[in-house]
Structures are given as structure tokens and as C-alpha cells.
């Protein structure tokens, strides 16, 4: 049964492969902005930039510029300081020209920092604590926390209802990303070469919002499928939870390498909304897409809360999580409840993956946040949905605010340390019921 299922995925993906190999060239891109008197970022228009031996470009009314290059390689790009508007200068005069490494089929962003002559020059030291940074990092933390929560709730509910720690849950996040990318870039069938000429939504990509809905459906189906054809059978056979856990590890590795095999190792981004100008609200820069994604994830999480509290199936879920035998003997169809949990968990993980994917889509993205998801669910209390939500928000906030004092590279480590600390002092998590877990 596992084999049959795998063959289907493999066949599906092997079709997509040839499309990913070809793409539409590469450019060096960027956006020029500087602070105005009020400290708001304003685009800098009409500046000339030159790539040695290739050509030049001028920044448009949003400050954006783009210079296409023919092939991958290292290029030298320079900005012409004489075309900068009055009162605006390069922050670091030595950095008027940069060497950039362009990879094939990928746009490379080159960054020139500009300052306004009369604007106060903000000292950007790694340890500096300013209101602006705290506000910005809080928003970043909330954002990451909300997205994490989408992935964590599924993991936590699956643990609650079946006792299984699902290491492959992160691959559901990646799966959601990749499905959405596929629909967004190629439509339903565009990845099969000879169907590509069909009109959208069949041969050509659909809008990201539509694609995300299909991505969620894909995630839900994958979740359902994993339960129906793998874990339900294992439960029926009485396979121990530790054995099932090792199976999820195998599954995680297997899926990850299916992804990289068919998707390639380099990161991608969605077709729509890829380069947006950030809004500045009070002291915080946030792009409209991130703002929308935060609102949607909040709504999705509220919907989950509503589902758990007020619907029959939600109550059944909580009953199964509370005491499986008691729930079964009071007439709840436990397998159906578990199926719904996997379905919903898969869909939420996929949506989380899409939101994370607004920054970057990569074959091992899920695996890289797996331990953050674990940190979130352990922090909140394994098996509780609200705990996962709170745990995820705390994780997101802690790791982002920690970068006020520590190196950004170490922020994921902070999450693990917090997790180990909580396991020492309150092993059941913030919202978990005290029970013997030690």
C-alpha cells in the first residue's frame, strides 16, 4: 500500500520535472529608498545604475530598477552618485559599486543603502535597542508565530488524538508550498509539456490566491491519504507509537528527497506579489502581502477555535484527545475524527507553508522549521490546540526579539533552549494538563 501510494506521487512529480528545468532568464534587481524628514521610506527616482559590460537601468517611480543579464556569473554593478537627487547620498561612499554573483534563472537583488543628508543617521549596531527595532521585531515575531501556529496546531491535534509525534508534518508544510507554487506557475496541467498551451487555469498559472486554495486542498488530501493508507492501518495492527514515530522519520526523509528530486535545490518565489513596496505603519515596515497573510492566518486560527468549541466534530476531537476509550464507548467514530484531524492539519500546514513561501519556497523549507514547530507545541503543551497557538506566538516573539541582543544566525537555537527550559520546569507546557510525562 505504501509503495502504491509512493509510485503515484513519484509519477506525478516526474511529469513536472522538465518544466522546472527551464525558466525565464535572470536579472539584477533592486529598489532605492531613503528616509525623508519624518523617518518614512521614500523611493528615490531617476538614478542611473550600470552593470559593467552589460548595460544600464534607471530607477522608476517606486525606486525599483532591473538590469537583465544573459548568463549566470559575477557582475560588477555601480550606482552613479551624480544622478542621486539633491540631499540624498550613499550611506557608505566606498560601496558605490558591488560585485554580485548571479545564479541561472534567478533574480539577484543588489542593495545600495542611501541616506538623506538632513535625516538623522540611525546607528545600526547589532545590539542597539530602539523603539523602532522593538516594534519591527515584535511584528516579525507575531508574523512568524501566526504562520508557525498553522503548522503546529495540526501536529498537536494529531498527537492529542493518536499519541503520534509526526516528524513528517513539516513535509506537509513544504508540500503545501510546492503544490501552490505549481498551480501558481503552471496551472492544473501546465507542467505536462503538451498541455501547456491550454488557457488558464489549465495550461497556465492561476492567481496566487486561487492557487493557495488548491494548495490547501492538496495539503488536506495528503494528510487524509497518509492517515487512511498508512497510520490507520498501523493503529489497527497495534504497531507501537515509537515504531510509528520512526516510520514518520523515514517518511519525512523520503518525501523531502522526492521534493528535491523533482523541484531542484534552488529556492523559488511565487509569480504574484513577489516584489511589493512596504507600508510604513507607525514605525513598522510591513508589506501588504504579509499584512494580508497575517489577517488570514488569524481568521483561520479563529475558525479552528470555533470549530473545536462549537461544532459536533470539534467536540468529538476534543473528546478523543481527552480520553480515546471513553469517546469510543460513547459512540464517537474515532477513526473518522482522526481522519478529519489529519485533513484539517494537512490543510492548515499547507496554508502556513504558502504564507512562509511568500518569502521563499524551498524543498527542505519544512524541515528547517520542524524544530520550531516542535518547540511551539512543546511550549504550549503537546496535544492541545490552544497551547500550540500560544506556544507558536511565544516562540515567534522570543526568537525575533532575541535578535536584539544575539546574532540572527542563533535565533533558532534560542527556540530550542526555551523548549529545553520549559521541559525542565513545566514539562506539560503552558496549557497542558499535569500528567506523568517524565
Amino acid at each position: 500500500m505504501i509503495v502504491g501510494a509512493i509510485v503515484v506521487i513519484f509519477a506525478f512529480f516526474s511529469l513536472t520535472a522538465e518544466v522546472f528545468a527551464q525558466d525565464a532568464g535572470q536579472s539584477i534587481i533592486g529598489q532605492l529608498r531613503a528616509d525623508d524628514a519624518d523617518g518614512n521610506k521614500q523611493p528615490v527616482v531617476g538614478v542611473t545604475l550600470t552593470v559593467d559590460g552589460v548595460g544600464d537601468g534607471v530607477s522608476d517611480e517606486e525606486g525599483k530598477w532591473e538590469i537583465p543579464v544573459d548568463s549566470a556569473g559575477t557582475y560588477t554593478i555601480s550606482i552613479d552618485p551624480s544622478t542621486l537627487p539633491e540631499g540624498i547620498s550613499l550611506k557608505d561612499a566606498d560601496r558605490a559599486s558591488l560585485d554580485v554573483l548571479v545564479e541561472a534563472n534567478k533574480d539577484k537583488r543588489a542593495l545600495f543603502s542611501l541616506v538623506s543628508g538632513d535625516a538623522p543617521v540611525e546607528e545600526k549596531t547589532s545590539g542597539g535597542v530602539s523603539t523602532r527595532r522593538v516594534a519591527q521585531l515584535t511584528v516579525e515575531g507575531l508574523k512568524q508565530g501566526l504562520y508557525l501556529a498553522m503548522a503546529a496546531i495540526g501536529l498537536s491535534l494529531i498527537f492529542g488524538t493518536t499519541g503520534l509525534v509526526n516528524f513528517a508534518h513539516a513535509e506537509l508544510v513544504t508540500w503545501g508550498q510546492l503544490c501552490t507554487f505549481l498551480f501558481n506557475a503552471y496551472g492544473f496541467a501546465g507542467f505536462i509539456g503538451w498541455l501547456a498551451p491550454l488557457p488558464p487555469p489549465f495550461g497556465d498559472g492561476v492567481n496566487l490566491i486561487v492557487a493557495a486554495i488548491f494548495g490547501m486542498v492538496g495539503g488536506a488530501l495528503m494528510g487524509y491519504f497518509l492517515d487512511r493508507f498508512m497510520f490507520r492501518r498501523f493503529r489497527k495492527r497495534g504497531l507501537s507509537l515509537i515504531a510509528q514515530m520512526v516510520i514518520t522519520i523515514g517518511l519525512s526523509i523520503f518525501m523531502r528527497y522526492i521534493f528535491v528530486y523533482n523541484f531542484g535545490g534552488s529556492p523559488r518565489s511565487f509569480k504574484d506579489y513577489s516584489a511589493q513596496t512596504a507600508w510604513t505603519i507607525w514605525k513598522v515596515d510591513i508589506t501588504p502581502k504579509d499584512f494580508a497573510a497575517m489577517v488570514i492566518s488569524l481568521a483561520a486560527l479563529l475558525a479552528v477555535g470555533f470549530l473545536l468549541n462549537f461544532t459536533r466534530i470539534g467536540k468529538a476531537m476534543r473528546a478523543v484527545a481527552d480520553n480515546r476509550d471513553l469517546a469510543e464507548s460513547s459512540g464517537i467514530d474515532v477513526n473518522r475524527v482522526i481522519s478529519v484531524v489529519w485533513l484539517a492539519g494537512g490543510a492548515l500546514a499547507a496554508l502556513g507553508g504558502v504564507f512562509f513561501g511568500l518569502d521563499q519556497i524551498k524543498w527542505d523549507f519544512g524541515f528547517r522549521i520542524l524544530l520550531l514547530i516542535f518547540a511551539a507545541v512543546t511550549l504550549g503543551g503537546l496535544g492541545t490546540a490552544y497551547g500550540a497557538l500560544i506556544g507558536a506566538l511565544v516562540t515567534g516573539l522570543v526568537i525575533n526579539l532575541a535578535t536584539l541582543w544575539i546574532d540572527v544566525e542563533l535565533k533558532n537555537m534560542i527556540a530550542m533552549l526555551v523548549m529545553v527550559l520549559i521541559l525542565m520546569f513545566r514539562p506539560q507546557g503552558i496549557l497542558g494538563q499535569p500528567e506523568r510525562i517524565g
Partner: protein
Amino acid sequence: MNWESILTQTFSQGFGTQAVVFALAAIGLNIHFGYTGLLNFGQVGYMAAGAYGLGMTVYWLDQSFWLGIVMGIIYCLVLTLVLGIPTLRLRADYLGIATIAASESIRLFVRSRGQRTRTGASEGINDFADPFFDLNIFNKPGSQSYRFFYWEYRAGDLWVMLIGWTVVALCLLITWQLMRSPWGRVLKAIREDEDAARALGKNAYAYKLQALALGGVIGGLAGMFQVIRTQSVQPDTFNPTITFMIWAVLIIGGVARIWSPVVGAMIFWAAISGLEAFLRELIRSDWELFGDTIGVHAERFLNLTVQNVSQVKFMVFGMTLMLLMRFRPQGIFGSREEMALDDR
């Protein structure tokens, strides 16, 4: 189709330096999971501790290589205290999460820029093991490669293998003697029923900590061989996938059996390298099917090329782990009764 090259790959890798590393790491994990029932998903953390104990002593402290080996062992013992004291009281699944988190924290820490002067950050530490290779008895003028039937090794690898398999043999001997001693019987008792062991007056926590330290030090030795064989300490070699490979090695051989880590490591590396070599040769071969070579078909229908053939082995590895756990969790030699698979 070059069968000789495939067989050479299979046999050489099956007994090669990689197999030494994984055999040692799996002996350590066998003490943790097989005999004591500790669900350690962070064995690679111990490998990193051993490797960096050695590498940092040479690179940062500028001391001798041999002191580095002692330091590696000390690092492993320190890691045992840091990891064991907070987490050993936890139930199996929590312990698994905590250990994988710890091993990943170590990797993130040593590769961070701030540690550049101590650990070499993401570039790692290179060419630190010359004192070890200076003693190589296989060095000879001219060709540096030895060949015996299907086994082919460079002189340096042969030296690592000689010392490595000797250390493996010693570790097996120690494990064998310890596990039939009263101390080992207490470990097994803890695996079977921790409460019962406690009721008999055994300090289960202390025994678990000792088992963690012993298995961890052996894991640290594995890490040292890993970095000696490549003459390079790279942070990203110590990623969680390595832990899972060690698990696969242990489960293939069979849990709670003395010989299983060695047999498992040999089978694992022979199979993985043999498979990769076979696929490579298959793609390159001039066999024809319906007018095209196999390689053309593979690229057309499966997008399988020489570039991504190495990913296939990881798929097979993941699949193997799943199928083994489903159909034969006790592996080749193990017995099902001795597996600590209850959720305790």
C-alpha cells in the same frame, strides 16, 4: 555496464571509513536505545561534540592532536550532563524531541559567525590531523592506492580503517562485557520496567545518565573518525539526517545485539553505495531499449540524470526505514521482545 566498478564501490564502501564511523555511532546508540531504552534522536550531537573537541583543541587552543582526542571525550561527557540532567526524566517521545533539538542547537552554534575564531564557523577546521597520518604504516612511495580483489583503498583510508576497526572491536568488547555484568542487567531492567527497577532500589536516573555518557563517548569517537578521515570539521556534516541514518544502521542490524551495529553499518553502506554506483552505470551504459539507451529513457521519463542520482539513494533510505519499522522492527539479528517500543 561496468560491473567491476559497481562491485568495487559496494565492497570498498561496505568496509570503508564511512562504515567505521556509522558502526561506532550505532554502537553508542545501541547502548542508549537498545540496552537502556533511551530514545536518543541526537546522536549526531555527540559526534559533533567529539569532532569539535578534537578540532577546536588544535585550531583554537593550538594544542596537540592527541590532547584533542582527550578533549573530545571530555566534551562528550559535558554534553551528557547538559543534555541528560534536564531531559532524562522525560517520557520517550519528549526525550526524542529534546535530544534532536539539542543536536541541532550544537550545529547552529558552531556554525555561527560569532564562533569563527573558535570553530571556524561555516568554513570549519581543515588539515588538523597530520600527526595521525604521519604515523601511517601504509605510506609508500609512488602509487598511494591499494587493491585487493574488489577492495580498493587509498593509503590514508586504509590507515583510518585499521585504527577504526580496532576501536570498533574494542568498543564491542567493552559493550559485550558490560552488558553481561550486573550493571548491564540493571540497564535492561530499566528498559523493561523502570518502576520495577526503582522499586528494587536501583537509582534509574543515575544508571540512565551513565548509559548516556558511555554511548555518547562512543558516538564522540565516531565523530572524531568522521573528521579525521576527511581532515576537515564541517558543521553541516552534523545534521539530523545523520542521526536517522545511524538509526537505520542500528535497526537493520537488530536492536540490543552486540554485533548488529557493525553488520548494519556494513550492509547500509554497501547497499547505499552499490545502489548509487549501479544507477550511475545504468545511466551511462550503452544498453538499448526501443532504440534509445537506458540513460535517455531515464532522463525522459524519470528525469533521472547523473546529477540527481544521489538523491535516489536518500529516497531508498527513507523507504527502507519505513518498511523495516513496519515489517521487521527487530532487524536481522534482534528479537522483538528486546525492543523498547512501548511508549514509556
